[in-house]
């Protein structure tokens, strides 16, 4: 037998448990969030990003940490209805805010239209970027509904029509390393077309 039961095994020196933060002298703060409709009161090291608060403190692992620098979009969540990169925001900045993660977008029993379309269109391979893609696309549909323009909008004063070029431009903040882009575009077009 190698080692004892897991509970009595000392932490490995070769593979120490990774510490996200050195919390020795770091200031903390209390933060109240509404996450997927539920009020959550947290006390956090002020350095904690919104992404780490969701994943590590609240155990909502749907939002993913890809690059942790706002470049890949895997951490996309909706804050007060707007899509943002949860990795580039401190949780303390969001005291009183309403956060929606992929867990709040839909469930296995009650999929959102975009979740259904991603399944129908096979719009993923490994799936790691998918929660961010779906949260981002959810925000995209709302922004288009409000008439917000993008760099692909030819007439800035006209109503928005979600052409393929518009959808591609508006999803440029989400990277898929498996390159399922054609299917992601199909899935979003299905839902955007149904809503139009």
């Amino acid at each position, binding site marked *: 037998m190698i080692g004892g039961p897991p509970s009595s095994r000392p932490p490995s020196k070769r593979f120490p448990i990774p510490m996200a933060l050195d919390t020795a002298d770091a200031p903390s703060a209390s933060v109240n969030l509404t996450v997927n409709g539920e009020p959550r009161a947290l006390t956090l090291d002020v350095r904690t990003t919104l992404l780490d608060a969701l994943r590590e403190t609240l155990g909502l692992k749907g939002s993913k940490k890809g690059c942790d620098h*706002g470049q890949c979009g895997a951490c*996309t969540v909706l804050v007060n209805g707007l899509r943002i*990169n949860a990795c*580039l925001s401190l949780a303390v900045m969001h005291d009183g805010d309403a956060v929606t993660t992929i867990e709040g977008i839909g469930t296995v029993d009650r999929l959102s239209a975009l979740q259904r379309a991603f399944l129908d269109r096979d719009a993923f391979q490994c799936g790691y970027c998918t929660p961010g893609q779906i949260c*981002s696309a959810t925000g995209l549909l709302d922004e288009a509904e409000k008439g*917000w*323009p*993008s*760099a692909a909008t030819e007439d800035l004063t006209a109503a928005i029509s979600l052409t393929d070029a518009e959808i591609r431009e508006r999803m*440029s903040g989400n990277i898929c390393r498996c390159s399922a882009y054609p299917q992601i575009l199909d899935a979003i077009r299905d839902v955007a077309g149904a809503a139009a």
Partner: protein
Amino acid sequence: MRPFSYERATSAAGAAKAAAETPAARFLAGGTNLLDLMKLEIERPERVIDVGRLPMAGVEANGDGLRIGALATASAVAADARVRRDYPVLAEALLSGASPQLRNKATTAGNLLQRTRCPYFYDAAKPCNKRQPGAGCAAIGGLNRFAAILGASEACIATHPSDLAVALSVLDASVETVRPDGTTRAIPIDDLHRLPGDAPHLETTLEAGELVTGVAIPPPPKGRQAYRKVRDRASYAAGLVAVAVAGDRIALGCVALKPWRATKAEAALAAGAAPAAAADAELAGAASAGHNTFKIALTQRLMTAALQDGKA
């Protein structure tokens, strides 16, 4: 990320006063640039003053012009009906930068005060006069295809990445601030950023603690407005060259450590020069750092194209 104290400001003047008390203080608004740099420990504030909830997020009529609050997000400004109708160069510039998620968070003041994307500024293992005055510049003699072609120095060849600032330059905007003593002032946008000279760590003309509260834009100039940007990808990539045109005014982006108002090209056009000749006049003083020679020709062509579009 290094430990820091966090506080939420309750007034703009109070925030300025607090920031002036602590040399290692930073204002936090959207956080999209500052937090990225704090993770890399390039920014190491000891005191973070969150100004994000101050009532400075509005876009309002200002006489016949417009006033944009410091905290108005890029998305909100680009979506504003008056901006889209009267200042399309501003909407186009904002929409050409970052990603939708970042634009939903990034603020007007933060956009103006964002740090350079020079890869050597981001690489803590390499010397950088911006990060550590006197350390030297690894971009000089390094892989510098993004580097400045105008206004660079022997201490720094970085560029300023803001698209917003370039559009504001051709709109003759001014940046409104409050100082630690509570007084306010307006700084013409072209006077906000400094060229590197021998002190590239000094990036703006703001005083210690001075807080940007908004941007005032005069009525739009007569004539067409346009923003053209060239980059390595079609979307969500750092710019190589950008050109803003509004009436007879021209400014360049991604070519210097500040938005580059092309006064020589404007003067040449006013004297009757053709677009290509006006671009040549501006670029007579352009210099390559080694790997960015192509940017001089690219800027010349993009300026010419933007000016010809503007005449159509």
